[in-house]
């Protein structure tokens, strides 16, 4: 019994660590499809990471140990976050009442470390990016917290693993509207936290428009590979929270469950790709409004579960 659980959690972590970058590949392929191009190979994010790992490191003379340790510490923290996020039918290694809050704060720690590394370079340009990143994520955080609390309210469970296990089609019958709103909120938070298009453009290199990208400009070689990998893991974690809401299906066959869950992950990536291809970036002044709208959706969802 314990061995099978151990096996399952090991599979959960390994699957997350190995499969995460492919989501970025899927998004890129969808975008290329919309633009009428063939697009880069699906595994391009892996190639990029390996290519960067082979390169040398350049550190600016103004940076201190904070900059050098920053990437490694954020990698460690994001892997910690991975330990509490279930991988579909495979439970998370650590799961306890209230780990939804831990997840939100671990994400906060990653953001904090990225921001102080950016500030450590002493570039005013990166300072600007940091200030924007903090501003927008301060608005996205309540939306994320409220959405997770809404899911907890619908399923009556307070850990990510038990939320994923409890969600079922009956929840969609009883609280369909709430779940749809919560999914919308989580999707907006996903777009915002992963520097995706209506909030930030991952491809831009125009200084006035960059938010996330500008903070990692000074990272080179293996450091940049780690940064890329972290952003892939972040996208994976957020998708892994939404996927069980999208397909709350539990058969007794773990392989079937896992493939349903994986197709949910792929669908979310495709949705991100579609949003990126069909929408323009929002003006900076409109973004707070957009994120507050997401918070309003989450609150509406919670109020609806309360009444019905």
């Amino acid at each position, binding site marked *: 019994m314990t061995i099978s659980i151990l096996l399952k959690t090991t599979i959960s972590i390994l699957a997350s660590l190995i499969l995460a970058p492919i989501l970025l590949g899927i998004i890129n392929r969808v975008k290329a499809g919309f633009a009428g191009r063939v697009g880069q190979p699906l595994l391009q994010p892996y190639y990029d990471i390996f290519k960067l790992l082979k390169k040398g490191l350049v550190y600016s003379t103004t940076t201190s140990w904070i900059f050098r340790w920053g990437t490694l510490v954020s990698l460690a923290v994001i892997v910690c976050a991975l330990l509490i996020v279930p991988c579909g039918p495979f439970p998370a290694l650590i799961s306890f009442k209230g780990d939804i809050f831990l997840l939100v704060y671990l994400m906060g720690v990653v953001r904090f470390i990225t921001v102080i590394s950016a500030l450590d370079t002493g570039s005013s340009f990166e300072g600007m990016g940091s200030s924007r990143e903090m501003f927008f994520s301060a608005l996205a955080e309540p939306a994320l917290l409220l959405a997770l609390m809404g899911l907890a309210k619908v399923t009556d469970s307070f850990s990510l693993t038990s939320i994923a296990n409890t969600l079922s089609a009956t929840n969609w019958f009883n609280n369909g509207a709430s779940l749809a709103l919560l999914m919308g909120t989580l999707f907006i938070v996903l777009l915002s936290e992963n520097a995706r298009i209506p909030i930030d453009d991952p491809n831009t290199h125009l200084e006035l428009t960059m938010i996330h990208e500008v903070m990692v400009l000074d990272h080179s070689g293996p450091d940049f590979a780690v940064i890329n990998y972290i952003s892939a893991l972040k996208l994976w974690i957020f998708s892994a929270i939404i996927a069980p809401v999208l397909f709350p299906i539990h058969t007794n066959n773990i392989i079937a469950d896992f493939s349903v869950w994986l197709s949910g992950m792929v669908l979310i990536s495709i949705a991100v790709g579609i949003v990126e291809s069909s929408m323009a970036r929002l003006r900076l002044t409109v973004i707070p409004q957009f994120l*507050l709208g997401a918070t*309003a*959706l989450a609150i*509406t969802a919670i*109020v*609806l579960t309360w*009444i019905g």
Partner: protein
Amino acid sequence: MKVQLLLILVLLTNLKLLGSSRLGSSIRTVAIQGSLLGLLPLFIELDSLNWRVMTLAIGTVFLKGFVFANLLFRAINVANVNREVQPFAGYVSSLLYGIVALIVSFWLGQILNLGQLSYSPLIIPVSFFGIFSGLFLIVSRRRAISQVLGFLVLENGVFTFGAGIIKMTSLLVEIGILLDVFVAILVMGITVFRISQECDHIDTDKLITLKD
């Protein structure tokens, strides 16, 4: 369930109105809200449809979904404005107000428990939220058109309440209210047109400087 869904959509259109600056899209949103509300009596009395409910639904969808939108679009074309500039309360604070109003509406819905009188527990919260949003739009926006929209949203809130307990009200009353609203929107449309003709703008806060 369908009634719930309609009411939730109405609620979301209200939130959208609080956060959007484009007058054209606001007019469209109000039209959608009006049509949704027009369908509400149909869905409520789905198993006992009669000509009374049908007339009301068709009349409401026609007036609120098409006639009002046309009148207001004509007005913004004539006045040549397409967005709300510098409202008295910004969009972020409007949305914050919306969140608070939403919670208060649901709280009011809980204490004002009409029980068997209303068809869905959402009727009262949604109608209160419509009334609160409408009032807020009227006081917080600068353009006369936005204030007309606020009035319509307010009226939609009241209509939600009426539609929820339609068995009690007679057709005559409902048609009378619709006629009232129609005349009001017509008059307001003409007024907006006249203001834009006379003053070259439709900013209501500048009207206090008028002298005869």
